[in-house]
């Protein structure tokens, strides 16, 4: 492999890693704070994709408008989903939460399929690419990476420096203790789920910039997003980005060196190893149960 080709692969790995990281952000937030595995995460992304695609293609709105709309709409949708389905069973067993989020996934994906059909859709314009030091950078992915990094910084700062952010972190550390010190845990929960859904919406919103979309596209991202969440440590935003990068590299170089979908086998092997050896994630400290 000549150096310029290798460099090209590295560039693609970083770009893909950024998208993976962005996809995992909302999942890690909900998982970390509420200890809920949100199977509907991929479906929420799909809603974001269709809002952007529909608003941009059919209504002719600017991306600067449709992407924020997607984020806000998903926040509202997330709060609605939480209050109607998750909140009543937040203290129930994890399998019940799993089934409920699975039910939400079925409803959302089928509804989108009924409204927009299962045919792939794409934005009418391509963003093209730039060449930099002999390496091609597709602009769609590049924008997605920039948005991912910005989202991580903003979300991280929000958790670190605002009162609400501190309350969320407190709840993530210990729900009971948070309750004792006067944090309104149910309110934190629905806000967390809302933020998580909004982040899913953001991830979904940037995907049409570089890829055809269809109602089942969320599935393709969801499983790897779980891997990234564990890799990066529950609830850790910088961890999600780093985990995303790792999976991005495994994906790209696995694609190059392994036959067929061998890269996916590699991803799961790494996942299992991390789960066994360091379930708190590569960046994490202790596991909290």
């Amino acid at each position, binding site marked *: 492999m000549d150096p310029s080709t290798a460099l090209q692969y590295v560039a693609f790995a970083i770009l893909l890693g950024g998208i993976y990281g962005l996809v995992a952000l909302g999942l890690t937030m909900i998982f970390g704070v509420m200890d809920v595995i949100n199977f509907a995460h991929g479906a929420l992304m799909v809603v974001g994709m269709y809002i952007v695609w529909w608003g941009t293609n059919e209504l002719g709105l600017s991306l600067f408008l449709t992407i924020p709309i997607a984020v806000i709409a998903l926040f509202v949708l997330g709060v609605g989903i939480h209050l109607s389905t998750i909140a009543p069973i937040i203290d129930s067993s994890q399998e019940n939460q799993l089934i409920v989020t699975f039910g939400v996934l079925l409803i959302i994906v089928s509804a989108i399929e009924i409204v927009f059909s299962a045919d792939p859709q794409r934005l009418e314009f391509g963003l093209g690419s730039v060449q930099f030091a002999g390496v091609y950078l597709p602009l769609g992915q590049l924008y997605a990476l920039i948005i991912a990094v910005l989202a991580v910084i903003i979300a991280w700062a929000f958790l670190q420096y605002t009162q609400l952010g501190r309350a969320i972190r407190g709840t993530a550390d210990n729900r009971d203790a948070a309750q004792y010190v006067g944090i309104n845990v149910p309110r934190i929960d629905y806000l967390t789920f809302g933020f998580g859904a909004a982040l899913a919406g953001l991830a979904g919103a940037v995907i049409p910039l570089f890829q055809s979309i269809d109602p089942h596209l969320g599935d393709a991202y969801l499983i790897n997003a779980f891997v990234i969440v564990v890799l990066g440590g529950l609830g850790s935003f910088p961890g999600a980005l780093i985990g995303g990068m790792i999976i991005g590299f495994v994906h790209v170089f696995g694609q190059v060196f392994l036959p067929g979908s061998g890269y996916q086998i590699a991803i799961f092997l790494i996942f*299992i190893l991390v789960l066994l050896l360091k379930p708190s994630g590569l960046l994490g400290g202790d596991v909290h149960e």
Partner: protein
Amino acid sequence: MSMSESTAQTQPSRIDRARLRYRTFRRQWYSTAVLLAGVFGILLVLPLTLNLYAFGLSLGTWVSVHMLILTLVWATTGQAWNMMSGYTGQFSFGHAAFFGLGAYGTIILLNTAGLNPWLGMLVGATIASLYGLLIGVLCFRYDLRGHYFALATLAFAELLRHTFNTVSQLGGASGFFRPLPQEYADGFGLIAFQFENALPYYYVILAFLIVVSAISLVIKQSRLGLYLFAIRENENAASAVGIPTYRYKLVGITVSAFFTAWAGAFWAMYFNTIRPETVYDILVNVEVLLPAIVGGIGTVLGPIVGAFLVIPLAEIARQSVDIAGFDHVIYGVLLIVIVLYSPKGVVSWPARLFELLEDRGLYESTIDDENMDNDE
């Protein structure tokens, strides 16, 4: 109000006497076995009643033998899943691995070595058990619990899906075709594990369900069951009183994998082709455990009752609407509603009904409701 209360206190109503009698019955060690026998008695004759008419209607209007077979397949997997995840509380989200190994083991051995599918099924089930043992040794040794364990099992299942999809010696994405029965036996029949019509398949899978349920019941009522449930309630405490939890969790996953593989083997012989996308699909992981969760986790009747609720509901939803895909919306809503309003499963419904009636003031119990009807 108060008057009826006082009269009721002195003289139990007829309903309450029946409830008392039922409660006494449910406290007998044999009661679940008797109930199971009743359920299986109904299931034995069920397909024969599909074409009986009453008032111009018949059960066959609602379900086909094929759907009954699928119901029993998922009831069997639900039962097998329950033996591990329901009894010990180690939530597996990767039972598709065992299901697929059973299916592939049977077909590959049949195709390459001409091994009779019944023997192939046992070999496949053994391989599934060993894979389960491997998962168990790794995960339990490193003390993975809760979500982490669920995700690990999912990863082990997905690992197989992609491996079988990629390695052409394992069939690749096209998987395998079941050979014709003449090629390895004297045509259709029990020995070939292939039949010309659906009814014999129904009785085979029913027999599987009976075996798995019986073993599930025996385990539950044995000392082993006691230990398994102790792990579910409080693993640290169980460990503290000297129960070797690690070993018993391994027993749980091995047994569970073994019987899940049976259902997979049945699948392979019932449908004439298997592929990674059909037997290792992510959805299979959900379908395996859904009956147990809907029916009642940790109960022997639960997975059967759950399967007979979930799959017919999906069928009716599918057949009721003409907008393609809308049935999934209905199905999703029903799943959510069932879990939200009945987190303990369908087997808790009778007790819940009385509670509900009491809350509404429609009915007053004269007996105390503590540990009433809801355990087996």
